[in-house]
Each structure stands twice: as structure tokens, then as C-alpha cells.
């Protein structure tokens, strides 16, 4: 009989919370390098950002975030709850956020769809919270363990109903899974909005070397100075993002998802109040677009072809371009979106000017490509490279073949 292989626990350090996690938020003065899984990096990032409340429901491929936080949060005085469903999960983080805690939940496409109504509620009540969506292949239960990027429109438009703007980020490396989690919390706190952080299953389950920045910047929500300050309207200082008090501090809050005035009184028939509220909720994101939007771009002179990508597809694009580089033929412009929403219209307009062909590799049938169609008036042609199902990656070869046609 074969001897059973005994696995030493330290062989799996990257999954074992006890090794590094507690150091990361006690001594973050030096740049460190770790070997982490994407989902694990999200949990680490959340703790570093100051997340002290997590409510979730198990779903592949995001469960590792829940696993890690259930062990990390009690140690830092936080709480981690398993709710009865995703609807309750986001409900609980909204409640927790109003007590002053930074709160987060993580899910995947099918769970994310259940959260939609309370995402709308969080937008309307201006509740900062972070929703991590580790995307899998859909629609429906689809291929639960395999990658996809089909939720980028769900992140943008998914809510009760109505007009709104949302912030959604997308990571392409495990390092980014860490740093963008912190960024998501910062944006949520600064603009009093739910922030959606998208990862593909590829990235969530990828284990690679992570560079952890020294002392990442952490933002905190503005708190009101006086009791009679408006908490749902333009602040007394004239800012579109009002300060946020906590429950139990004597502010006598009127929190509601119905149309309300700046003090929370329901005004369900007054058109003017509704227009004012809804346009402020959108404007507070739109006028800060330049501060919110992050992207990486490289545009050689006389480039006629460009690649626009996000998430793990941009790793493939980078690989394809570095192969061209080696052959000294790299005249391809490259743009990687880190912020998917609000959509970087001006930046893309600037990027595609002068280009003839834009290649868009994606793990869906062309959702970003569809958004880019709006820039056709600048004389560009859009070529999609779509890869869905089976967890199969887009290959650098595919991008190179497409590039060869137009080079």
C-alpha cells in the first residue's frame, strides 16, 4: 500500500492566514513582497483599508475572501457574519456602514444579481460600502468555477431602477486585488457611494507575487460638525458629498430610499426635489471623474493600432506587445482601464484620436467593445477578441494574429 503523502502546513502558507496577515496591518512601513492568492489579497486589502464588518453568503469563486475575513476580522475587533442570502448580506453591510464601520461583502454574478435592489438603496441613501464581485461564466449559474467578465454591465446598470452613476474598478493582477480593494474603500468613503470591485475568477484564484506598498493611503468619511447639518444634500460647505453621521449619535436621522430632501424627509410627489436629489447623486461622481478614473496608457508616436482592455485580458495584451517589442515592431498603442465606471470618455477619446483600428480582447461577447462603438465617429474600427467558457484564456497568439492583419 502506498504511503499517504503528508502535507506540511507551511507548504500552503499563501492560503494560511496565520503567516502574514497580522503583520500587514500592524507594521506596514516597508514595501513587502508576498506570495498571495487574488481573493486572499482582497481580504488583506480590506483589513488594511479599515474594513471591520463583513456579511456574506458562500459563492464560488469568491468564497476565499469570506474564509479569510472570518478568521481575520474577529482578531481586529470586527465582525464577520454569514447571512441567509446575498440580499441580507448587502442589507447588513448597509446597516453596519451607518454605525460608522467600513463594511464589505463579496460575491459572484448570481449573488450580485440578488444584491441589486440594495445597491440602489445604498446609492439613494448614500451609504459607503464595497461590493466585491469575482466574476464567473454566466448567464445564470453558468460555469461556476470558471472565469468570465460578463458582469461589467450588471455593475453599471444593476439597481432598482432610475438614473444613477456608479464607481466600479477592475483588477488585473493580485497586487491590484490588494491595492484596488483599499482604493474601493477610499472611494466609497470619499463619495459616500457603494463601490463595486470586479475581479475575474482568473485573478481571484491566481496565486502570484504581490508587492505591498508601504503605508497605503486610507480615506475616512467626513463627519458632520453640527447637529443641524444636512446629511442628504449639498453640505453647508457647498460640497456635493454631504458629511455622514452615525446612528445613535443623536442626529435623529431619517434614512430612506424614497425621494427625500436634504434632511431625509420623504418628498415622494415633488418633482423638483427628485430632480435635485438624483442629479446631485450623479453629479457628485461625474464632476470628480478625473480624480476617480485610473488607467494605464502607452501610445507610441504614429501608432495606428491600439488595444483597449481591462482585467486579465490586459495581461495577455501586454504579453503580445512585449513579443512585438522584442521584434522591434511595437507601434501599437495600449490602454488598460482600471476604472470601468464612470466610463473614461475623455481619456478614451484622447487615446483613440489618430488610431485606425482598436482591438478589444474580453472575456465576454464584447461588452466594452459595445461601449467603445460610441467613438466610431473618430474614424476607428473596433475588432473584438472574445473568449468565453471553459476557463480558457485568450492567447497572446490570438492578439498577435489580429494585430498582424493591420500592422
Amino acid at each position: 500500500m502506498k504511503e499517504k503523502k503528508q502535507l506540511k502546513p507551511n507548504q500552503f502558507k499563501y492560503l494560511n492566514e496565520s503567516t502574514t496577515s497580522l503583520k500587514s496591518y500592524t507594521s506596514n512601513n516597508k514595501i513587502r513582497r508576498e506570495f498571495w492568492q487574488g481573493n486572499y489579497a482582497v481580504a488583506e486589502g480590506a483589513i488594511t483599508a479599515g474594513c471591520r464588518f463583513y456579511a456574506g453568503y458562500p459563492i464560488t469563486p469568491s468564497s476565499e475572501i469570506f474564509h479569510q475575513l472570518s478568521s481575520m476580522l474577529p482578531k481586529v475587533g470586527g465582525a464577520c457574519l454569514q447571512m441567509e442570502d446575498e440580499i441580507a448580506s448587502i442589507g447588513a453591510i448597509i446597516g453596519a456602514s451607518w454605525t460608522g464601520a467600513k463594511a464589505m461583502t463579496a460575491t459572484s454574478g448570481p449573488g450580485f444579481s440578488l444584491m441589486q435592489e440594495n445597491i440602489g438603496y445604498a446609492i439613494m441613501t448614500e451609504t459607503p460600502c464595497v461590493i466585491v464581485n469575482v466574476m464567473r461564466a454566466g448567464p445564470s449559474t453558468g460555469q461556476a468555477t470558471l472565469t468570465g467578465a460578463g458582469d461589467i454591465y450588471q455593475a453599471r446598470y444593476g439597481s432598482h431602477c432610475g438614473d444613477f452613476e456608479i464607481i466600479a474598478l477592475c483588477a488585473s493582477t493580485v497586487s491590484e486585488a490588494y491595492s484596488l480593494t483599499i482604493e474601493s474603500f477610499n472611494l466609497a468613503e470619499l463619495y459616500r457611494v457603494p463601490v463595486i470591485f470586479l475581479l475575474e475568477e482568473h485573478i481571484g484564484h491566481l496565486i502570484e507575487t504581490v508587492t505591498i506598498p508601504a503605508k497605503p493611503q486610507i480615506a475616512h468619511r467626513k463627519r458632520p460638525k453640527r447637529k443641524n447639518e444636512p446629511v442628504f444634500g449639498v453640505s453647508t460647505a457647498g460640497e456635493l458629498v454631504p458629511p455622514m453621521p452615525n446612528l445613535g449619535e443623536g442626529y435623529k436621522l431619517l434614512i430612506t430610499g424614497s425621494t427625500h430632501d436634504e434632511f431625509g424627509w420623504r418628498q415622494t410627489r415633488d418633482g423638483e426635489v427628485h430632480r435635485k436629489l438624483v442629479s446631485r447623486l450623479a453629479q457628485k461622481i461625474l464632476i470628480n471623474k478625473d480624480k476617480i478614473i485610473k488607467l494605464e496608457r502607452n501610445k507610441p508616436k504614429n501608432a495606428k493600432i491600439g488595444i483597449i482592455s481591462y482585467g486579465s485580458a490586459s495581461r495577455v495584451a501586454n504579453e503580445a506587445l512585449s513579443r512585438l517589442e522584442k521584434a522591434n515592431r511595437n507601434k501599437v498603442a495600449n490602454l488598460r482601464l482600471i476604472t470601468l465606471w464612470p466610463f473614461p470618455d475623455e481619456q478614451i477619446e484622447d487615446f483613440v484620436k489618430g488610431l485606425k483600428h482598436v482591438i478589444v480582447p474580453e472575456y465576454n461577447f464584447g461588452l466594452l467593445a459595445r461601449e467603445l462603438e460610441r467613438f466610431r465617429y473618430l474614424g476607428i474600427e473596433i475588432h473584438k477578441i472574445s473568449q468565453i467558457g471553459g476557463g480558457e484564456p485568450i492567447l497572446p497568439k490570438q492578439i498577435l494574429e489580429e494585430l498582424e492583419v493591420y500592422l
Partner: protein
Amino acid sequence: MEHLHPNDDYLRLLHKFCPGCGNGIILHTLIRSLKSYIAASEGVKSQEVKPESARPKKSKKSKKQKFENPLDRFIFLSGIGCSGWIVSPHLDADTFHTTHGRSIAVATGVKVANPDLMVIVISGDGDLASIGGNHLIHAARRNVELFCILVNNFNFGMTGGQCGPTTFHDAITSTTPFGNFEYPFNVAEVVAAAGATYSARWTVRHVLQLEKSFERALQRSENGFAFIEVLSPCTTQFEKRNYNTEDPELLFDLFKTNSINIKDRDKYTSKELEDKFILGVFGDREVEGLTKTIGNIKSRACAHKKHNSIGGEK
């Protein structure tokens, strides 16, 4: 300012519920029970101060939040529907008007994130038993320290009197014009069976018992999930369709004549019980609440950290 009503100090404005609706009674009963609860707890505090100051302090980490006003400690959550309006915006306190059915989920987050707060959920049968039924059962199971009031008016009042999970069999509603072919939910019993600390049912006709029960539930909600189902007439929608009148007295009389206490349940045959309202306490038991058990886990987790930092394997 001159107070016209003894409860005016707790109210932002007068309510505008339909004539004969029970929501106003519930609002004022809640305020009265809150007042006596606050008075009682302040009395306990002033008595406790002396022996405690004499003793050396046990724990250094007693970071209990201080509240300027005793009502600041109470957070009132509601969902959608007529009963969602009982506390929001009428009560002059922190009110949280949530999405349909999700008030308990949000309340769970509030309570767990800040256990110093007293969290009260007050909503309707459609909100808590229909769309939010899952949250209700699970809140009772995990015994989260909430005080939950379910206002049962036997139908969906605000949206036009549709049939709900608590509508009587054969009752006429806007969606069951030929009579309800389903049977209602015994919510108080379900919640008790799901593990709640306290579960009771009263009607707005039994105001004294209701007030005492509210007080009891407030005390019990310090340690677990305390639930009260309050039967209330819906004159505009339900009574009009089923009894051809909007006279509030009719259902009030029915609540009086057709009610029996749960203690006397055995005296009746099951046939007789069919059209009776069974009132009283369905469950009252000692169980550890969720925030207590989470606190236990925290200390266990911190102990685990210490063990790791020593680095020894046992």
C-alpha cells in the same frame, strides 16, 4: 412649546393613517413602553452606581457608548408599507426606512456593528412575513438582539388590499375576489419555533397587555430576538371588502370576542380554534444572543493570535 399630547416629546409630527387604523395605537403604545423602559433602566443605573464605584473596576476596556438623550440609543427600522410609516418619519429618533422586506437584514448589520444600540424593527405582515420571511426566520434562529414588531392587518394595505401570507382562508381581497384559496401563516408560532428569545401575539384591542408585552420584549431584546405580532384592523381595504363597512369598531369587537389566550388553547377543539385569534406569549426562553456569541468568538480569535505569535506547536 406647548405639548398637546403626552407623547408629543417623542414625535416629529402627527400621523396621517386612515381612520380606524391600528398603527396609531401601536405607535403610542410603543412610545409608552419605551418611556417606562427608559425610566426603569435609568432607575437601575442610579441604583447601580454606588456599589460599582465602591468596587475596583473589573475591566479597563468598558468602552460603552454614551448617549446624550436616552432615546438616542434606540434605532428604529422599518420596511415598505403602511406599517413602515409608523416610526419613520413620525418618531423623533434615528429612523431607517429600508427596502421592502429587508429591515431585519439591515437591523442585523446595525446591531452587530454597534451592540450598544437598541434596535427596533417595526413593519407589516407583507414586509416581514412575505418578502422578508426568510430574514425573519433567520433572525430568530441566530437570535440577534432585536425587538421586532410585526403589524398584521391581514392584507397588503398600501398597495390596494391584495392577499398576503396572513390573509384568512376565504377572505375577499383585491387579488382573491372569490375568496382566498390559501391558508394563513401563524407567524408568532413560526418565530418561536425558529428559536427566538421571546415571541408573542396581541391585538390593538388589548392595549394594556400589548404595552406590557412591549416592555417585556424590550427587556428580552437585550439578550435575543424578541418578536411581537400585533393584529390590527385595515378598515379601508380589508374590512371594507369583507365586512362591507369601514367602521373600526367592528374588527375591534371581533378582536375582543374571538380572541382566546394561548393558555386556554387546550379547552377548545381544533374546529373551534379555526376562527379564533390565539393571543399571548408563544415563547419566552433564555438563549445567548448573537452579539454575545460574536464577542465570545472575538476573545477566542485573539487568544489564537497570541498562541501563533509564540509560535509553538502543541
